[in-house]
């Protein structure tokens, strides 16, 4: 090969590895996905599009939780609480006070972050398990408040009638095509979600690869050593908690307008657990891991609503005996959670680092998993503060 060809190839490789190319790919795939789904799924397209939107929304939540769990190494079991706060804030502001979706979402993010700080300051001093329990208590508190504060939230009856987001492009000079419209179709919803997800991915990625991200990772690796490097542990943990809560609130506020109603049941404790599963199984501490985890698990749960054996039977028509047997396997939609559980156990057993792990974590789990971490010998020495 000639020299120019080689340099062309290597610069092409650099472009492919670079972030600009990744973003181009993201937008191309996001734009094409609804059409692809329509082509592939045919009449069950609406199922596919709905699942797609849920993947996008929950991916935002997972990216946020990952900041606390993956970047900082703190276990948060109450993430659903922040999503609920965001949902109600957006719902109430849009319905009662006529806020636009954009203004309401912005206020929701701030409101979520505020509660992140309020919860974080007194509790982040607690170590591991105690901290996780307090976050669990917090989410229960939020759910109870929403269920019983009838005057504001309408309690267990749910909060209906939230308007759809409006897009107003009149401020851009020279726009004539549909410059002011309400988002209603599932296509439009997906593009809204994809755009917000892009923003969230961008921020999560920039945060990770910065002085701030390094400080968080240092705290995750060894808090004592991080403090000896001049890192104010409380400040950085609180900041992570606030940003993460803001992500959760944004996800909640999108769900509120997507469903046009809020039910307290949508964000119970299981929501916190599910989002945690997306993060852990996708790969903690990376940007794409939570995205992959959400895509896989949300799609799986939605797919398993219908008997998977019967679905398999349909494609197995070339082997009538097997298809016949499969078609007679009994199934109930709730059984999908059993299958889900089995999948989680298999994942933890065979790929504990997640689908798209961060390199170092994979190494840690596979190389000196059982051999006793030398760091832990010294915990006794310094953790008693």
């Amino acid at each position, binding site marked *: 090969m000639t020299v120019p060809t080689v340099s062309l190839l290597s610069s092409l490789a650099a472009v492919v590895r670079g972030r600009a190319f990744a973003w181009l790919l993201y937008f191309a795939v996001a734009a094409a996905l609804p059409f692809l789904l329509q082509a592939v799924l045919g009449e069950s397209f609406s199922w596919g599009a709905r699942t797609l939107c849920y993947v996008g929304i929950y991916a935002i939540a997972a990216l946020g939780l990952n900041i606390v769990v993956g970047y900082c190494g703190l276990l948060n079991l109450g993430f659903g609480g922040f999503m609920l706060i965001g949902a109600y804030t957006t719902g109430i502001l849009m319905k009662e006070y006529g806020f636009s979706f954009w203004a309401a979402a912005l206020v929701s993010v701030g409101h979520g972050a505020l509660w992140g700080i309020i919860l974080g300051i007194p509790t982040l001093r607690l170590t591991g398990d105690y901290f996780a329990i307090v976050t669990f208590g917090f989410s229960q508190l939020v759910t109870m408040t929403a269920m019983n504060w009838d005057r504001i939230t309408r309690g267990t009856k749910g909060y209906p009638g939230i308007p759809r987001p409006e897009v107003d492009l009149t401020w851009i000079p020279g726009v004539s095509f549909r410059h002011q419209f309400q988002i209603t179709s599932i296509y439009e919803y997906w593009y809204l979600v994809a755009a917000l997800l892009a923003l969230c991915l961008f921020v999560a990625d920039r945060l990770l690869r910065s*002085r*701030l991200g390094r400080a968080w*990772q240092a705290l995750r690796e060894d808090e004592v050593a991080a403090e000896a490097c001049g890192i104010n542990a409380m400040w950085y943990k609180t900041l992570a908690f606030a940003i993460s809560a803001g992500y959760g609130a944004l996800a909640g506020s999108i769900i509120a307008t997507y469903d046009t109603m809020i039910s307290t049941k949508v964000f119970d404790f299981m929501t916190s657990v599910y989002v945690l599963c997306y993060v852990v199984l996708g790969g903690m501490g990376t940007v794409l891991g939570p995205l992959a985890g959400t895509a896989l698990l949300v799609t799986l749960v939605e797919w398993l609503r219908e008997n998977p054996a019967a679905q398999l039977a349909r494609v197995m028509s070339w082997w009538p005996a097997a298809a016949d047997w499969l078609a007679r396997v009994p199934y109930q939609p709730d059984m999908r959670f059993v299958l889900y559980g089995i999948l989680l156990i298999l994942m933890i057993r065979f790929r504990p680092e997640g689908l798209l792990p961060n390199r170092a974590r994979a190494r840690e789990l596979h190389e000196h998993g059982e051999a006793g971490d030398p760091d832990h010998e010294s915990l006794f020495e310094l953790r008693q503060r």
Partner: protein
Amino acid sequence: MTSTSDLHTGQAANAEALLEVCSVTKRFGGVTAVREANLKLMPGKVTSLIGPNGAGKTTLFNAITGCIPATSGQILVRTAQGLRRIEQLRPDRITRLGIARTFQNIRLFSNLTVLDNVKVGLHPRTRAGMFGAILRPPWVTREEATITRSAMRYLEFCGLEGRDGDVAGSLPYGYQRRLEIARALATGPRLLLLDEPAAGMNPAESRDLLDLIRKILESGVTVFLIEHDMRVVMNISDYIYVLDHGEIIAEGTPAEVRSNPRVIEAYLGSAH
């Protein structure tokens, strides 16, 4: 005896200490790990702290760096604004006042790369925050470039060139010790506390370590050293404090300490 008193005037009274520990006591429940310790660190010198296992050396380091605050007593550090009490400060504040340390049980960020470990060390000397990280204006890009450049310089200084991309936890032991020193130096200290840096090193490695400590001194950093390896201690120390059962039982130059009967009894005696 005259030579002894001459050296003592060099150590005390009118000379300006960089750090002073004044009757510091640390109790863990019923155990008094350090009792009424007094010591001074002179700028530009190597001061060593020796003593048998469990004497309280690491505890004293933890008290100075704020990792485990002292029960009572004062710790004073000389800053541009004069003497400053630090015994109540958080560890990160103390680091920012120019006191860095390494740990007896190596504490690296073992899943991060060697380069990132040193970059974390540069944290107190840089300032990009949340908005800087997200928006990444030109000054942040420049700051990141500076961080990378100086981190590489610290790696080179400590003999770790070419290792920057390795995962810190996978480094050989001797390199991990050096990396911890590089990370501590990156915080820009005036005083460096080294807790048994030669532990587990072979003679060749500890000779290299001696050279590194000399280089650190030449760059204007004062060193406070805990070390069991007597070759290292006697070779490099300007002044030595001997700790036994939490109390300072002797102090002086290497020659004085070596010939002190209490030291021979408490420490060197047991080692021979």
